[in-house]
């Protein structure tokens, strides 16, 4: 029997619902008319007990974000403010939600996105900042249909040709374009693939020609250049030997709160390559379905694993004619980590917290705790965003009664390899339930994963039932529902 975790998010049929507000509590936005003076605005703020959070950046408009008192009804207040002549319009501070299941053409082939739990992360994601990610690589295909919108080409640099046009010479199989697409391909545009991060600006920096860079000083200069561009993250899908010059530039980034992510290496060796090996860098290895890929470099400096591909590669943007291709390697794992780091930063997590947030919430694979093969484990975007290391799901047999679920078997946690064996089933007609209680509130509700094998089993004594697979689905926030679990016994089995 096995459990398919994180297959895709889908509405779960449940029996209760509640209204969910899709705007920030106690916040409104007011746009004042152009000819209104600052004094008039101040008077209005005082009269209506509005606490100014900040002026929203517009060149010519007077638009402010306010906090209102807790006893005010936001929607009623807005109707009231809109009656005043000095107010052009006002509205709640709406939360912009992303579709958890993007409409990009090849999204379903992006298995790695589900591996790192991106859909629930996108469901919770609330963009605050645009994140700049430097991709130090082979350059970019700047006109790529699924990427161009998210490329900050003018800030790019070409250290091979020594100009400001970092175009990849490999027009169809561009490594840099592939890596960039994993981090930040445009999502929900009905074409191509979906990037891990949202609200992103990719800065391409070209140092590779024909897959290799001549000197470590090129890399050092590229890192220094990226820092000068005020980037938040530097992705380095490459590796090699140590260099003091390269390390010096990496050490300098610490003063600038820049997140550095690098590939562990593809040579099946017992230590990771540089720059991943530097302590300032997050070293990323390749995962394939919760197992390490057989080509991975391992070692005590490995921090995390993320999808790298094996039999099935990682699909992403590539070139002019070959627009989307699969590539395989630790080059692909690093941008997954960079992309998740970008999601966290954009959502307000501070740079100094990123490393710990990623490692402390990773899915622990292999021996318990950090190990040389998986580091801290598989990066989990959802867990990282809510700052919880997700527990393994529960499995039990049950019957549904009046909107509740009554447990009719032992109550177990699934094995590390997503399999289970269930015993002590005490009813002759049951369903089998898999449930990940993400917020640990003992209710099946928004944010949890839930799945049923709902062909009722007529359980006979001393009979073995095999191959009962359960697909679990994420319960999105905007369909918030709950279902009580009865007879739940919390024992050491958790």
């Amino acid at each position: 029997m096995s459990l398919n975790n994180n297959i895709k998010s889908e509405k779960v049929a449940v029996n209760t619902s509640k209204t969910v507000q899709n705007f920030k509590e106690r916040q409104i936005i007011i746009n004042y008319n152009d000819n209104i003076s600052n004094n008039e605005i101040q008077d209005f703020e005082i009269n209506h007990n509005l606490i100014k959070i900040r002026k929203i950046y517009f060149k010519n408009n007077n638009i402010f974000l306010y906090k209102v008192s807790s006893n005010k009804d936001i929607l009623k207040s807005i109707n009231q403010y809109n009656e005043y002549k000095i107010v052009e319009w006002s509205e709640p501070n709406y939360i912009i939600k992303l579709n958890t299941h993007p409409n990009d053409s090849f999204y379903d082939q992006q298995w790695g996105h589900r591996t790192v739990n991106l859909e629930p992360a996108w469901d919770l994601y609330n963009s605050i900042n645009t994140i700049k990610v430097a991709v130090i690589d082979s350059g970019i295909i700047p006109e790529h249909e699924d990427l161009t919108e998210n490329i900050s080409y003018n800030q790019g640099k070409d250290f091979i040709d020594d100009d400001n046009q970092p175009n990849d010479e490999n027009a169809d199989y561009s490594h840099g374009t592939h890596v960039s697409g994993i981090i930040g391909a445009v999502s929900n545009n009905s074409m191509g693939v979906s990037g891990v991060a949202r609200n992103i600006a990719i800065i391409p920096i070209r140092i590779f020609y024909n897959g290799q860079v001549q000197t470590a000083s090129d890399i050092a200069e590229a890192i220094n250049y990226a820092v000068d561009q005020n980037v938040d993250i530097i992705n380095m899908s490459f590796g090699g030997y140590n260099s003091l010059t390269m390390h010096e530039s990496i050490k300098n980034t610490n003063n600038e709160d820049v997140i550095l992510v690098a590939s562990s290496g593809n040579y099946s060796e017992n230590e990771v390559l540089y720059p991943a090996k530097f302590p300032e860098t997050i070293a990323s290895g390749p995962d394939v379905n919760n197992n390490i890929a057989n080509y991975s470099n391992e070692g005590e400096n490995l921090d995390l694993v993320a999808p790298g591909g094996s039999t099935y590669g990682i699909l992403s943007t590539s070139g002019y004619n070959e627009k989307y291709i699969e590539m395989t390697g630790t080059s692909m794992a690093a941008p997954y980590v960079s992309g998740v780091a970008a999601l966290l930063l954009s959502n307000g997590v501070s740079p100094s917290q990123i490393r710990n947030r990623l490692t402390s919430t990773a899915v622990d694979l292999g021996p318990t705790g950090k190990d040389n093969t998986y580091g801290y484990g598989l990066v989990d975007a959802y867990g990282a965003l809510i700052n919880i290391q997700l527990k393994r799901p529960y499995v039990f047999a049950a019957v549904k009664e009046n909107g509740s679920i009554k447990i009719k078997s032992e109550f177990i946690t699934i094995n590390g390899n997503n399999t289970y064996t269930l015993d002590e089933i005490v009813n002759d007609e049951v369903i089998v339930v898999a449930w990940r209680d993400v917020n640990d509130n003992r209710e099946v509700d928004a944010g949890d994963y839930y799945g049923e094998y709902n062909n009722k089993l007529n359980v006979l004594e001393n009979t073995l039932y095999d191959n009962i697979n359960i697909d679990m689905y994420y319960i999105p926030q905007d369909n918030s529902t709950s279902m009580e679990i009865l007879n739940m016994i919390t024992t050491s089995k958790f």
Partner: protein
Amino acid sequence: MKRHLPLIILISLFLIFNSIAMVNALEINDTEINFDISPQELNNKSYVPLNQFNRLENFLMENLQDNRHLIIYKNKHFIISISHKIVKSSQGEFTLKTKPVSLNNHLLVPFELINKIFNNQDIVQEDKQDNKLAFKISTNKKTYSNSDIIELRIKIVNNKNQDITLEFNSGQKYDIYIKNKNGKVIYSWAKNQIFIQTFVSETIEANSKLVYKENIDISDLTKGTYFFEVEIIVQDYRLKAQSIQININ
């Protein structure tokens, strides 16, 4: 018995010339010269058809009277005679160990003469063996000063009649070692390199080749004899590391 000897020799030559079992090739200044010949490796006595060299730039061949032939290559010229070992050239007269011969209107000359006509340092021999990837390395010179840059060519030849795809674990295709005359590695090219960490494949079309070029700075090397060894880092195929000797004066 004496009367039959020339006939036996001619029959042997004919068999050699018409043997299709092995296809050998030379490369001279980046131009490949293919010809049919049976020995797996050319030596000074091996016969090669001179007209195959006509495709080289700066190479000219003229028939003269009395079974003589004029060969001009760049600023050098040679006059050879069928069945005579003596060669007159712009560099003086010399004697071959094996006579040039004519067979079916083909002028066959010993490989020794080829080495004289062309700078033998420019000649790269290729062993084309069936069902194998041939892997060769060459340098632009054999003797350098340590202010020179060594131009190293790494060539992988697909002798099959079908495409071959080579899979590499990363952007690294090979490593280049410099060993001293005692065999100790004193330099590894890859140790100074950084590579993208994606699996990379290169397809060599049927009967085609893949050539990589690297310039190696030898300014740190002192005078002496060294060996350049190249190892191809490829999955699925075992290609024996190749070595070439160079001297630094």
